[in-house]
C-alpha cells in the first residue's frame, strides 16, 4: 500500500492504495465518482478522460500513485450542484449525446481542447476529439456542441441552472435538414 494525497474536484483526499491501482479505479471505487467511465481499458475509447494538473488524461492509463500531489478534475467537478458548465449545457442543447456513456469523457476532452484553443474550427474540434469514441451519435452533434460552448466560454456567463433548462422547450432549433 502507498499513501497518496490528491486534490479531486477541489477537495484534498488521502488514501492508502495498492501501487498498481489505476487512477480510474481510485476515482470510481475509492471515491465513488462514477461519472468517469471505463469503455475499453486499452486507452482507445476516452470514456475515462479526466483532467490532471490542467491536462486531459485517460485515467485508465495512469496509476493512482502517479496522481499523488496532483489536482484532478472529473465530470462531477465541472460545475457546482444544480449548475451546468457551458459544455454540459451545450451537449444538452445540441443533443451531443444519446446513451451518454461517452459523454463525460467527451466533455473533459472538449474542455481541454477549448482551454488550449478557445475558438477551434470544425477540423480542429474533430482532431482534438479523435481519441474519444462515440458509437451512437456519428459525432455531428458532439462537434456542434463544442462549437456552441466555444462561443460561450468567452462570455462571462459561465454557469447555467438545470431548472432554467427545463422550461426551454420552445427554444430548440429545428434542424435545417428537415424538409
Amino acid at each position, binding site marked *: 500500500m502507498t499513501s497518496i494525497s490528491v486534490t479531486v474536484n477541489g477537495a484534498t483526499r488521502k488514501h492508502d492504495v495498492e501501487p498498481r491501482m489505476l487512477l480510474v479505479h481510485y476515482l470510481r471505487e475509492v471515491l465513488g465518482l462514477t461519472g468517469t467511465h471505463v469503455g475499453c481499458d486499452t486507452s482507445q475509447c476516452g470514456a475515462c478522460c479526466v483532467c490532471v494538473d490542467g491536462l486531459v488524461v485517460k485515467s485508465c492509463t495512469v496509476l493512482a500513485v502517479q496522481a499523488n500531489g496532483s489536482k484532478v478534475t472529473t465530470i462531477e467537478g465541472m460545475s457546482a450542484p444544480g449548475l451546468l458548465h457551458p459544455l454540459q449545457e451545450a451537449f444538452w442543447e445540441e443533443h451531443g449525446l444519446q446513451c451518454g456513456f461517452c459523454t463525460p469523457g467527451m466533455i473533459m476532452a472538449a474542455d481541454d481542447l477549448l482551454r488550449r484553443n478557445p475558438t477551434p474550427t470544425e477540423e480542429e474540434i474533430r482532431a482534438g476529439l479523435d481519441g474519444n469514441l462515440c458509437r451512437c451519435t456519428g459525432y455531428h452533434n458532439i462537434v456542434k456542441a463544442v462549437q456552441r460552448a466555444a462561443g460561450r466560454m468567452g462570455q462571462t456567463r459561465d454557469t447555467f441552472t438545470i431548472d432554467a433548462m427545463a422550461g*426551454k*422547450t420552445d427554444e430548440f432549433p429545428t434542424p435545417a435538414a428537415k424538409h
Partner: protein
Amino acid sequence: MHASKIASPLAVGRNVPRKDSAEKVAGAAKYVDDLVFPGMLYGRTIRSTIPRGRIAATRLAFDQRGFVVADYRDIPGRNVVALIEDDQPFLAEREIRHTAEPILLLAHESRDLLLRAHVEIGYERENPVLDPESSPTAFKSLAIDKGEIEDGFSEADIIIEGEYRTGHQEHIYIETNGVIAVPQDGGITLLGSMQCPFYVHKALKSMLGWSDERIRVVQTETGGGFGGKEEYPSLIAGHAALLALKANRPVKIVYDRAEDMIATTKRHPAIVRHRTGVKRDGRLTAMDIDIVMDAGAYVTLSPVVLSRGAIHAAGPYRCDHVRVRGRAMMTNTPPNGAFRGFGAPQTQFAVEVHMERIAETLGIDPVKLRETNAFRPGDTTSTGQILGEDCSALDVLRRAVRRSGFRTRQRRYAGTNRGIGLALFYHGSGFTGGGEVRLASKASLGLTERGVQILVASTEIGQGTRTMHAQIVADALGVPFDDVYPVQPDTSNVPDSGPTVASRTCMVVGRILQQCAEEMKTRLGGMTPREFFAAHGPMIVTSEYEGPSGIKWDDSTYRGDAYSTYAWACDVAEVEINPDTFEVRPLKLTCVHDIGKAIHPVLVAGQIEGGTAQGIGYALIEQVVMREGSMANAQLTNYTIPTTLDTPPIDVVIVENPSRYGPHGAKGVGELPIDGPAPAIVNAVRSIGIDLREIPAVPEIVMKAIDLGKGKTDARHVPL
C-alpha cells in the same frame, strides 16, 4: 402541473430537450458498473478455449478460500437460455460447441484474486465446422416464391450473376455488458445493461424454475445496445443469479472489452448469390437469390434474422418472378445475434451492389436503372404484399440524386481517384409477419401527483425512448411535455411492452401509449390531470396492441404482409481512394430517409447520423478476424470503429410520408440507416473502376479486387 387555461404547445415534431440529458451531462446517470451493494462479490466466467469437443476434466488450481464456484449442476431449473429453440445452455455440461462458451462461474470479493484464479480444463477435441457453406446443419431454411422464376428467365434478354460477401460486425456499445444479481426475501433482482427486461425475466424463470413474482428485472442506464443487448444479457443475468443464490450475496458481472468482444454476439456474416434476368432497357424479369448466413453455434435469433434478411433480399424493386432461398448454418463459432438491421444490411448490400453491376453490364445509368424498377404504391413485394401510398422509393431516390448533385459530381470525379455511388433501400417496421399480434404488447399510463407517468418495458438505450414517448403522450392528452415523465423499466412495475428492438418502440409502443392517453383523456372528462388527481386520486390506464385490420401473413408459406409499413431511404456516398495504401476514405454521405413522421427531428437525425457512421465502419474498417473459430482481434486497438476523423459530413434529409399505423404517421427509424452506407460506399468505389463485391473493404480486399480486375481483359480503367 400547469393550469389548463394555457393551451400547451404541441410537443410532437419539435426538438424538445431529452428527458435524460441532465444526469448524462453531469456524470450522474447510473450505469450498471456504477452500482455497489453491501457484501457484493464480483463474478467471473470461465470459458472454453477450443471451438468444439467435450469437457474431459476440470480442476480448480487455486486456493478456494473466499470463492464461490458454480457450474451446471447448480441450475435448479432448465439449463437453456429460453429464446426461440432453447438449445443454448447457460453453462456447458459436457459438449463444447464454440470458443468462449461458459463452463464455470467464480465469485470473490476481491477482483484481483478472482482474475488470478486459474482453472484447468481438459478437453477431448473434435474437428470444428468453421465454414457455413460446408456445415451439415441448417438451423433454419426458408423459401420465398413469387411468380414462376423460369418464366422470368425466359422473358429476359440477359442474365447477370454475382456473389457478395459481408463480414461479422461487433456492436461496440461503449458500455460493455453487465448485470448485478441481488438475492432478497426468497426472490432475486437482476439489474443490468439491457434492451429487453422481459426476455431476461423469461430466461431466468425457466432457469430457476421459479414463479413470475420471485424474479424482478430492472434496466439500469444503458450505454448503447444496437441489438447487442437484446438476447445476450439473459445469459449474463443467469450467471450472476446462480452465483448470487449460491453465495446468498449480491454478485456483479461486468465484462471487460476483450471478453465482451470475444464472447458476445455479432452480426451474421453472409454470402448472397444473385442470378437476375433483365431486359435490355433494364427492367427486371427474374430475381433468383440464395442466402447463406453463418449462425454460429446456437440458434439464438438466427431464424428471424434470416427471415428479415430474406424478405428484404430483392431490394425495393418490382419484379414479377422472385425466388429467395435462405439458410442459417451452424458453425463452431460464438453465436451471432441481433444487430441493428437484423439481416437486412447483408442482403441489401448484395442486391444494391448487384444492381450496380447490372447497370454497368447494360451500360445504363445506375439512377435510371433504379428509377425503372423502384417500387411504386400498388406494387407487390416478393411476399405478395401490396404496397400502399406510403411507399416512397422513387421519391427518396430522386431527392437524394438532386440533393447530392449526383450527376455533376459523377462527371467531376470521372477519371480521378474519387467516386460517387448510391443505394436505394427500405426497412420493415416492427416484428415480422404475425410477430406483433403474437407479442400482444401492453403499455400503461399512470396519473400521479407529479403528473403523468409512462409505464412501459421499452428501454432507453440512447435512441430517445423516454423523450419520444413523452412527446406522444403529452400531445394525445393535451398536457405540457414537462408533465409527462418516464419510469425505469422494472418488470415488477411495468407491463410487458415487448422487446426494444426491430424499430418498434415509436411505431408500435408509441401507438399503444397514444391509445392509453386517448382513453385517459376520456376518463378525465374535461378535468385537468391535476384537478382529477385532487378529486379522485391516482388512476392507471392500460392498453394492448391491436393488430391493424387487413394485415395478413402466413408463416408457413412466407406470403402476405411481412410488415405493416416500411421506411424508405436513399444514400449517396462520395469516396476517395488512396492509390498507395488502397484505403478508401468517405468524403460525404447524403441520406434521404422517409420515416413517416419525425416525432423529434433532432433525435431522428441522430439515429440516421449514428446508424450511418456504423454503416461506414461496416463498409470499410470493422473487420472481425476469426482464427480457429475465435475472434483474434478482440480489442479496440485492432478492431476499430469510426472516430471523429473517419466520419465525414452526413447530410440528413427527413421525408415525411405518413404511415396509417404509427403515431402521427411515424414509421421505424432505428435500423433503416444501417442498411444503406455499405452498398453506397462500395458502389462509389466501383465507379472508380474497382470490381468490389465484399465488405469490410479493408485495403487488402480493395487491393485484391484491383489485382483481379487487372487480370481481366474487360477490366474497366483503374486510374491508380
